[in-house]
């Protein structure tokens, strides 16, 4: 039988059936690139009996590499103007909007119903816009000129803590992720995110959005893997300045706090339904800032008070 005959015989559907679907490789996102795990280990998260695919199982060295990337990006990111950071957060929202269909479908694959998935995607977009708006405003709200009894102009402003390790929510793979990343980076922090172990797909796809949104490499780094394997390594890491945990079991939270006490890093633990509007607020930005107070000597002209 010739090739032509064979094609003819296999019928009209042949074009469709011979097309092999190209499956996506879910890789991690470190320093603006998409590497596989250095450990070459993978796992298959299962939702409703079906596998989501091969996902990287990050090792302690991946954590190390991601923290190095976040640290080297931090100075540059926090030096950008608040206005520019707002523009970039807005840009992430634009990019997410353009791919909302894909995100909805992926959320459905990860076990959400269609309606919830769509709500979560649009809320994620809105949340980015919300924090984009706060970038150049939270300073005015949280900073202060303090009354002091000496010849000083005394003022307090917020500074980003530095590198924040974020453990994403297990049940809210996109909205929980975005709701923590946005306030963390809004003030000039960089972060390393460990995606939800159960539903990591949205995090990886969100990395593709970040990669095309003018977010400098290293500002957000996304790892996938098992929290229990990595807890000690990121909690004890001296170059991680704060940890944000969302929806972890209490035992794990305690373990993280104990390790984090070694260099007194800040640990913030959240247990909330991110789909309520109240969970978006500027206090989340404040959670990852530290207050810097400056005493600036001034001339005290008379008894009439500070004269700056």
């Amino acid at each position, binding site marked *: 039988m010739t090739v032509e005959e064979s094609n003819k015989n296999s019928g009209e559907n042949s074009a469709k059936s011979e097309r092999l679907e190209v499956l996506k490789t879910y890789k991690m996102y470190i320093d603006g690139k998409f590497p596989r795990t250095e450990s070459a280990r993978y796992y298959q998260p299962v939702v409703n009996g079906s596998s989501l695919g091969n996902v990287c199982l990050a090792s302690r060295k991946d954590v*190390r590499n991601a923290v190095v990337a976040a640290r080297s990006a931090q100075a540059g990111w926090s030096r950008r103007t608040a206005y520019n950071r707002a523009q970039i957060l807005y840009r992430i929202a634009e990019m997410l909007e353009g791919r909302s269909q894909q995100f909805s479908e992926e959320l459905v694959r990860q076990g959400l119903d269609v309606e919830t998935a769509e709500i979560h995607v649009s809320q994620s977009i809105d949340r980015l816009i919300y924090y984009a708006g706060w970038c150049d405003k939270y300073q005015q709200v949280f900073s202060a000129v303090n009354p002091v009894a000496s010849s000083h102009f005394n003022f307090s402003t917020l500074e980003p803590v530095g590198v924040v390790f974020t453990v994403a929510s297990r049940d809210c793979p996109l909205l929980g992720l975005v709701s923590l990343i946005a306030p963390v980076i809004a003030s000039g922090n960089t972060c390393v995110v460990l995606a939800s172990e159960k539903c990591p797909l949205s995090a990886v796809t969100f990395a593709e959005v970040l990669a095309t949104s003018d977010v400098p490499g290293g500002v957000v780094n996304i790892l996938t893997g098992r929290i229990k394997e990595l807890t000690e390594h990121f909690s004890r*890491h001296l170059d991680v300045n704060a940890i944000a945990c969302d929806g972890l079991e209490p035992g794990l939270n305690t373990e993280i706090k104990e390790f984090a006490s070694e260099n007194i890093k800040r640990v913030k633990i959240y247990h909330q339904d991110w789909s309520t509007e109240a969970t978006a607020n500027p206090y989340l930005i404040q959670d990852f800032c530290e207050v810097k107070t400056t005493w600036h000597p001034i001339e005290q002209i008379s008894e009439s008070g500070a004269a700056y």
Partner: protein
Amino acid sequence: MNQSGTARVFSSPAIDQVGVVERAKRFTARSIKSQAKRQGLGMVLSMIDLTTLEGMDTEGKVKQLCYKAQHLHDSIDGLPNVAAVCVYPNFVGLAKRSLAGSGIKVASVATAFPSGNSSLEIKLADVSMAVSEGADEIDMVISRGRFHRGDYNFVFDEIAAVKAACGESRLKTILETGELGSLDKVRLASDIAIAAGADFIKTSTGKIQPAATMPVTLVMLEAIRDHFQKTGLMVGMKPAGGISKAKLALHYLIMVKETLGDDWLDPKWFRFGASSLANDVLMQIAKQQTGAYQAANYFAID
């Protein structure tokens, strides 16, 4: 050798560039066990020439560097000191006083560093000044312009003259490989420097990119090896610039061991010219001891 007076003809073996790059890459694929790593990291520290060569250097900066050389990280017990502190000639006296009794050497760049574009008289005066201030080691630069013109005898004579001016001090000859262009030229310059009496050959000033790379260092190590096999005399090696990570430094040690042997794994014969390498090595040692990854802001700024 030819008969017409002092003029020499220099010829060096041709370098297989692809082969050298491949070979250098293999040194980075050795598995290093944790015990060997611990030893290696200590060895790297003891081989560092802690360097400050900036136009903005001040006495305070040099004093601070000398303090750092003797107190790398006091909260870790049993750390070695670095091999030397490397400064400009006008800071040699100060460094010498600051390091008195520590056993740490003072190295000084000289000969119109970093370009080397000046007369022989001025270069020799530069060297004499550093030597009279007490420099234990002199880091000279070769005249790359004359080298590229093919004036190899000029380059040779200059190195020999500087060597004579060094007296008891050991001479390191900087080839500035980033300006030489090819590995063949690197090999030729190495052979000239060794023949002219250099105690050490050194890759770079640190002012030009690329500075030290593994292939370039390998070519220079092979020049040292061939010289040793021919004459039985040892020459030291100092890669400088661009080595800022402990892992890379360990790769260099493996390369030295496998090319020259254990005798060169000694601060007398092998050095790293670096400023930020020390802190990275300290961070690795602290990681090995405590199990926690370290952060740069817990270590002294050089």
